[in-house]
């Protein structure tokens, strides 16, 4: 086996000793005990496995470990803490997207919710105040089999508005 791969996960430096072509999803779930990203298709078609790499939402089921060597990976498990640190918020605060999902009760089974929250958070971090049409565009392609889209959309719209206020 080659040298262990070093990366940062939710602010912590880690090193993992598995094959470089291992999809990041399995490293995160099985070696690093992350529960946010989940297996939904393994084909980049659903978003259940979404994590952020250096702030960009990516699908970890098709991202080899080698592609994130030396990079910063944020999972849903660490999203709130990373937001607190970046934006100097009170410890324990949630990312505004998470708060809005709770406010609008935007989950049925919640299996897909990781994908929506991580994608919306990455998008709104760069584009707070995005309009509904922009949000529909940015989230298109993510799947939710339970049909929670109405409340997801309400939640992301609320988060967008709140984040615009926060940056203003």
């Amino acid at each position, binding site marked *: 086996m080659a040298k262990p791969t070093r990366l940062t996960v939710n602010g912590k430096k880690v090193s993992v000793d*598995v*094959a470089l072509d*291992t*999809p990041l999803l*399995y490293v995160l*779930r*099985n070696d690093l*005990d*992350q*529960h*946010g990203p*989940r*297996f*939904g*298709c*393994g*084909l980049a*078609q*659903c978003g*259940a496995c979404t994590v952020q790499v250096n702030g960009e939402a990516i699908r970890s089921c098709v991202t080899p470990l080698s592609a994130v060597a030396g990079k910063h990976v944020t*999972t*849903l*498990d660490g999203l*709130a803490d990373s937001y607190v640190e970046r934006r100097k918020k009170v410890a324990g605060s*949630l990312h505004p997207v*998470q708060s809005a*999902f*709770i406010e609008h*009760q*935007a*989950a*049925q*089974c*919640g*299996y*897909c*919710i*990781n994908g929506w*929250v991580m994608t919306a958070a990455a998008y709104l971090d760069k584009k707070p105040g995005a309009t509904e049409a922009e949000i*529909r*565009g940015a*989230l*298109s*392609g*993510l*799947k*939710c*089999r*339970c*049909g*929670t*889209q*109405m*409340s*997801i*959309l309400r939640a992301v719209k609320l988060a967008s508005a709140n984040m615009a206020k926060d940056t203003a």
Partner: protein
Amino acid sequence: MSAHIGGVSNGLNGLDGLNGLSRREFLTAMGGMVVSFAVPTAGASVGALVSAGAGPWPEKIAADALDSWLMVGADGRVTAAVGKIDAGMGIGTSFAQIIAEELDVPMESVTIHMGDTATTPDQRGTGSSNGIIDGGSALRSAGAEARAALMAMAAERLKVPQDQLMTTNGVVSVIVAPERRVTYAELVGGKRFDIKMSGKAKPKDASLYQLVGKSLPREDVAQKVTAKYPYMVDFKLPGMLHARVIRPPQANAKYLGYDAKQKLPGLLNVVTRGDFVAVVCQREEQAIKVARELNVKWSTPAPVFSKSYDALYQRLRETRPDASEENQKNGDVVAALAVAATKLDVFYEYPFQSHACMGPACAVADMSGDHAQVWMGGQKPYPLRKAVAELAGLRVERVRVTWLPGPGSYGMNDADDAAIDAAFISKEIGKPVRVQYSRADGTAWDPKGPPSAIHLRGGIDEKGEAILYHFESHGYSGRVRPSGTDRFGDSLAAQLIGGYKANSSNLFQLPSESYKFANKRRAANLLDWTPSLNTGLRTAHLRDPDGMATCFASECFIDELAHAAKMDAVEFRLKHLSDARHKAVVKAAADKAGWQTRTSPKSPEHGPVVTGRGIAYAPRSGTVVAIVAEVEINMDTGKLRVTRFVAAHDCGFVVNPLSLVGTIEANLMQAMSRAMFEAVQFDEYKVTSSDWLSYPVADIADTPDQIDVVIINNTPDMKSTGAGEPATRPVAAAIGNAIFDATGVRIRRVPFSPEALRAAFNKEIKI
């Protein structure tokens, strides 16, 4: 508010706080079980109710013992057990509301424990939207019994007659001297009640409810958005190996062997029996790769499926049925058709649909010792226990099946099959195994909702009166694959192995409605579909079994009758419906939608984009729903969008209106997806829908601009009748009727894909 809800309330995050127990002792104490995620555990692992320990486990959790349902911990926390599961709708919060209400304890001190055969009474799990009906009423009785018992104990302790006592916040006190008090914990904390459920304790009068009926936020949502909610997929056992199944490439293909010389990293075992094949590896990603790369030889079978949907529907229409049922008949439908001035004679068609759950099924099994333990994400862990016992050759006392939250499930999805696969593989190799299905296993191989070709005939007499409604369906039973896995033969593994019988039964495809016509008949015909049991087209319960198909046909046809009678669709329904509650729901939906009385179709609009509205209604086991859909259609591209839904929903008294509205909206969205996009594709040899590209579902871009939900008859005196499925039922019909209103073209086949609509518009509209 934070009640605690978990299938595994004795799970611990790590091994802290075990008071000197070594890891080994701990494992023994907990029957070898470690839950590697954070489960809301506070106070839950105390007492007899939830600490199942190592097996053997009770053959039956006595349903007549109060201790089976409810316990008060030494800290005063209340744990209630129920033989149901949460299929993703947050029912645990509603259960906690019921217990907190009956017992007069705060929500945050209630833990709901579900779906574990060793520690919760067998209510067969969840199905037919019965969570609140059966689970809720059992908990209500248990709460009432417990409160009565606590009152009696307090009366003795405080030496005050019961009628001078009151209960609040987990305390019994003297009404006129509240400082004279005793807590539930002091009375019975950490101890058993040791009383039988008398059936005599009177539940709280509904007019006094403080919690039941309130829109409390669901306790699971915050956990779900912070990655703290425990899912089946998060469960790990020490020493657990990773397995993947390899299904035959064509239906009925026989397994002929595999290439044992192939060098595949991580491969530990290839398990084969009959046509069942699985690979076991050290790591998950290795199992995925090996399952893809292992060279397995299969025979080339004769074709078993129809060539296309056209061929399938023709087969359904023309083959002599194996079973038939007539469930309503009045007048003379043959004579009426003969004398009708306007005759209608049409077929409606509904396809195979997949559960296509968000996560393909996952299960863990440990059959390595003389006990069997299975962790699964399906709706019916209790029957599954028997099937595992049969497979393991063990008495049920030596088998424990524990439900953990899966992805949303909508009936008999792939979860039970994965659980049996895991049990079988674990037994074969003698080690704990985790099975994770692939996307194709979840979409191409899950049990399917059955198709139907539905013949409708109707007639209008010369006075313009509708005098005939004749419904006759031709399809496959939705219980070819049974709705619970009571025996090994019910599972896909057994059918691939061969030689086992499934407990298939007939489910006739009939609508529910209360229309009165002078001549009316409803009948259903089923073709034998048991040869599909070892294939990806075996049929089973999918949310509201047959409800969407039969309502689509029946309610669109009612619109056709209204059209022929030159009447408004709502007016026609109100005229012919016989049940007052049904009429009220139809009226409520129309009122909320601002329904304009007129005939359909709407007068033509300019430009390619046209709009329309449609209504449909359906009762379902006591619940009644009516839906108005407003649509926008591009006549050039066939692109359809639902811009608004209005749902009037009568399911009696509502435990938690907020979570009900979420459930209704989700039903509408999922049913919209099924109506607009979903048909499992196949060729003569195999299912060709295997992922989200070949089995498309609705996207967020398809989300309506608005959904309005009107809840009727939500008063404490009305019985709660279930809401997990009813709103699904009328959706395809409402959209189909809206398409006709907008375009004048009647679409009689689901799904309403752009290609199908464009083709229909081109055929019917001469330019």
